[in-house]
């Protein structure tokens, strides 16, 4: 049951990110400071950790994506490391 709820919320957020990536993101200059980008990272986090922890990880990553260092700004290669073996 809990798994189903988690899956449900995950897919909602996943769709929002998909929508953003496809329709909104191209309007702006490419500006993510990370690799993979925040939206990719968010999606991976949802897949890997489920709704609660995944959202938490994704939001934290977003909050780090700016140039102001003393507010936690950062950049670079920062993927979600998968414990499971995934294809595609």
């Amino acid at each position: 049951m809990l798994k189903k709820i988690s899956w449900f919320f995950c897919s909602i957020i996943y769709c929002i990110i998909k929508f953003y990536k496809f329709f909104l993101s191209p309007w702006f200059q490419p500006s993510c400071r990370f690799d993979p980008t925040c939206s990719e990272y968010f999606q991976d986090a949802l897949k890997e950790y489920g709704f609660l922890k995944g959202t938490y990880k994704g939001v934290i990553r977003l909050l780090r994506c700016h140039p102001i260092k003393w507010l936690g700004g950062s950049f670079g290669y920062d993927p979600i490391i998968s414990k499971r073996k995934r294809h595609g």
Partner: protein
Amino acid sequence: MDNKNVILAVFLSTLILLVWATYFEDPKIKEKRFEGEKNKQTQVTKPETAGGTSVPKIDAPKIITRVDALKDGERVVIENNNLLGSIVLRGALIDDITIKNYRETIDQKSKQITYLNPKKINEGYFVETGWAAKGNVKVPDNNSVWQLREGKKLTPNAPITLEWNNREGLIFLKKIEVDDKFLFKITDTVRSDRSGNIELFPYSQITRNSKPTIEGFYISHEGLIGVVNKNLKEESYDTIQKEKKAFSGNNGWLGITDKYWMTSIIPEQGKSFNAEFLFKDGFKVNYILLDSLQLGGQKIISSTSKIFIGAKEVHVIDSYSEKEKIERFDLAIDWGWFYFITKPLFFLIDYFFKLVGNFGVAIILLTVVVRIVIYPLADYSFKSMAKMKVLQPEMLRIKELYKNDVKKTQTEMMALYKREKVNPLSGCIPIILQIPIFFAVYKMLFVTIEMRHAPFFGWIKDLSAADPTSIFNLFGLIPWSPPTFLIIGVWPILMGVTMYIQQKLSPAPPDPIQAKIFAFFPLMLTILLASFPAGLVVYWTVSNVLTMLQQWIILKRTKVKTV
């Protein structure tokens, strides 16, 4: 990638747009036209059909005009600089209010806004205050005829007092005051000449006989509203028709709101009350105080309530919230989720308006300010984008080198960025922040009364409405009025064109299908925004032009440096 889904998404959204235009927009406009004609003929009531419920039976036949209804019984005139109306002595109801300084259409000769109406007509909408008694005590009701004791005409400097004697030893007095804006203060007093203990509970009630024509747009709430102990309660007419809602608290206010106008009853703050939203012979909003006032022997009790009837002007609403200490009265204006952005933006625009005297120019100034604020970040990102262009060959080489290893490519890229110190892009945060600003401008244009009928230059007579011109009749050259979804004005087209140019200046999305769909976006948004407030389209167009200008300057500058 999932190209099928993308095509499906585009197809579906286009379909939704078309369906929305034909089934919701057109009938709405027809309905409005129809209603306009009806008002011209006579103000005959229309049969209530909403939700399949029948019209509640009210004592008198309802086929009378507003004018006739107003002739029925004695009245006391109310007038200040903003309101004109009267109080009917039968029932002591405020049931006739016209908001003087606003008109129904942009035509200055059109009718002023008639807001409250006598109860006998279908659009009946009125406010009362009174007492509920415990036990068998005669208290005044809607049919009690009051006598005018003091005053002649209710104005800001001249309150009036009404009196009603229950002939059983109780005398009811009602003192009504009004300020120069939209606030009434009613002091109900009871004097007893008889022995024995009597318990009375003060109440106030708003009644609206039928659901008004509402815009029914999700973006602004129209219906029953209130704040009870800091919690905002918003209920639609349809919900209340189905079920009653009850609240209790000791602070706040209750009312019925339209997009720009509102009637609200405000209990004495700090006293506990029970409040209800219900449908019974019309929509009712009421509260009753829980602590009774005891009356015994030669005693006088009294209770005060405030009533707001009028236009939701931002500064007026805020001043009542502060000066009259009405808890969270500012929420009467539906600022929405982005309250903390929308409201400051409004104040900024209002400040510019006071400087230049035109809301359109004020919006343009706002665009400039928003640009300046995010300039440092945008500058950052534009600059690095220009630098990226210089690094293009190197990046292509890396891509070619690690063609079969996506991960390796990305890591190498990052290494390249670090080496060349180009990475510091502005990041995702600044971009995510721009979306709420845009939404806040939209909300502000849609919700605040200050934008209503605010003119810009030329053909834009109302910034809160869509650009009325249309390319399909060559902007008025051909005597033909196209259907709603074909009204695509000059400003939306300007917006589309500037967006197209801006798009050409930005890098194309990596996915080819996405790039193709993206090319259609300026066209799609032109069509979509054509029905949005003209002020928003002006904002967007000017914003596009400024972005382009900035981008062009930066590109030029970096080119000079590198060559």
